[in-house]
């Protein structure tokens, strides 16, 4: 569908709003030193930590977010709307607030502080928890809307063919959800990779332990702007690359 013509200048403005900052960033990059800046020890440590924690967090959103999507899809009535709002809250919550909330739950003096044998705060695990916390809604929304678009017919037929519920899930439903899972995973990974506020609040900024690439960028942005720009460029490239490769727009209502 093509909209009226007056949409075009607005669309151009919107595009510029995204493009200009990227252009500004790229203009700041010192291309001759790019390689040495990106491969400096601090940069590599931060990047490596970011990639590792983001991958683990993405797996966690799959393991936890997919079941949540199923449960939401299976619920009826006002309770469903309420639970959905709660589960999706990290999408709209300021990340700092999320980090504080995590601290009050899993920190030393938090709800589960003692049960967890001290504190998980300020560890690499805390980074993963913070990333999973903010990224999981993407997976839940993706799975729930994909399930809503299914008629359930294939599942019913699979039942008449003698398949158990687990078999129906693993052989019929999940393969059919493939594109939605990929979309959810890509969005979750990109969100985890960019996580800053909740990580800083809940996990701190210990080099090699919790200092992910965004934190490193923030740390060196004044002392070493060239390094910050180089590292930023890497994050931008990874984010755009991943989204371009695997993201397909969600179908159906969220």
């Amino acid at each position, binding site marked *: 569908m093509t909209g009226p013509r007056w949409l075009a200048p607005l669309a151009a403005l919107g595009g510029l709003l995204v493009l200009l900052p990227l252009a500004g960033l790229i203009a700041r990059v010192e291309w001759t030193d790019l390689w040495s800046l990106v491969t400096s020890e601090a940069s590599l440590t931060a990047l490596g930590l970011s990639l590792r924690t983001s991958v683990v967090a993405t797996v966690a959103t799959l393991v936890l977010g997919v079941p949540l999507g199923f449960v939401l899809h299976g619920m009826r009535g006002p309770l469903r709307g309420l639970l959905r709002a709660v589960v999706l809250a990290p999408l709209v919550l300021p990340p700092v607030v999320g980090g504080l909330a995590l601290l009050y739950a899993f920190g030393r003096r938090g709800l589960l502080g003692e049960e967890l044998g001290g504190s998980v705060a300020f560890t690499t695990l805390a980074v993963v928890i913070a990333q999973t916390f903010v990224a999981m809604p993407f997976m839940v929304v993706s799975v729930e809307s994909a399930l809503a678009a299914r008629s359930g*017919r*294939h599942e*019913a*037929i*699979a*039942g*008449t*063919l*003698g*398949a*158990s519920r687990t*078999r129906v899930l693993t*052989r*019929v439903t999940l*393969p*059919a959800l*493939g594109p939605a899972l990929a979309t959810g995973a890509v969005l979750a990974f990109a969100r985890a990779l960019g996580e800053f506020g909740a990580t800083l609040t809940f996990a701190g900024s210990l080099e090699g332990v919790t200092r992910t690439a965004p934190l490193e960028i923030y740390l060196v942005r004044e002392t070493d702007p060239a390094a910050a720009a180089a590292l930023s460029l890497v994050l931008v490239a990874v984010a755009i690359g991943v989204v371009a490769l695997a993201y397909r727009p969600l179908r159906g209502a969220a």
Partner: protein
Amino acid sequence: MTALEARVRVPARGVDATVEVAAGGTLVLLGPNGSGKSTVLEAVAGMVPGADVRVTLDGVDAPRAPRDRRIGLLSQDDALFPTMSVRDNVAFGPRSAGASRAAARAEADAWLARVGLDGLGDRRPGALSGGQARRVAIARALAAAPRVLLLDEPFAGLDVVVASEVRGLVAGLLAGVTAVVTTHDALDAYALADTVAVMDSGAVVEAGEAVEVLTRPRTRFAARMGGRVLVEGTMRGGALEIAAGVRVPVSGGPGAGVPAAVAAHPGAVALAWSEPPESRASGSAWVADAVRGLEPRGDVVRVHGALLAADVPVEVVGGIAAGTPAWFGVPRGLEAYALTAGAPAR
């Protein structure tokens, strides 16, 4: 082989029907679109939430969970799993029953050969023609070794040649399998049925041996589904009295005064607009009626009156409107049968 008996009530869809099939037999559920046939099948398979269904297999209540019920359903949309190869689709039942991957695949290939799709196992369902997809769905349903197989309009949506081929295939494969087949086509009933149940508006209006229901229908609806027109009346001597003074000579039939009927082919019923031809000469008994509706049926038009119907060439009905008086000529000497419930049919 398993005998099936099912009582299906789905108030939301206005369905309340009972179906019975003898072990190894084929019941054809004959009815127009929207008569509730598919709902009955899906409910028996355990796929309709909120349905009040009682299914007994060999007189024992069937388990509630579809996977334990082992009643297979061949649905109109085939519902092949798009993410699996054709072979894995067919192997799905055996694998679910615990067969090893290799055994299930060998069985799937054997079934694919049986339905004439040798060598197509590696294809994806999306790369199949309509007829091939239907064959895969048939193979998948049978490979699961169901106690009862339900086939929902198995030849719908296929072109004439392919439908004939698949009909022949199904007729062969259903030998010895307890099956229920829904259709709106009398041809399927003649080709497959041991018994026939005619459905109208969610209820079974007539059921019995296939030949009996198809050639000696007791309701006008069943007659129409079987491709006939029911001429009802009362026996008076060797004739069927349709209305006061209107008699059609018949052969056989019950004694005088008993309600009876003949089931004529609409193609054999003659039609005249003005005065009927001389009865004796034309070989038909003429009944005055009026046109109620015109039903296009390919190269003929079925002219429906209040009592009778006749198939005539299209050009005959040009400019004819409802209410036009018409004479229907019923062939003399059709076999009459009693309409009294429980009475012998001759």
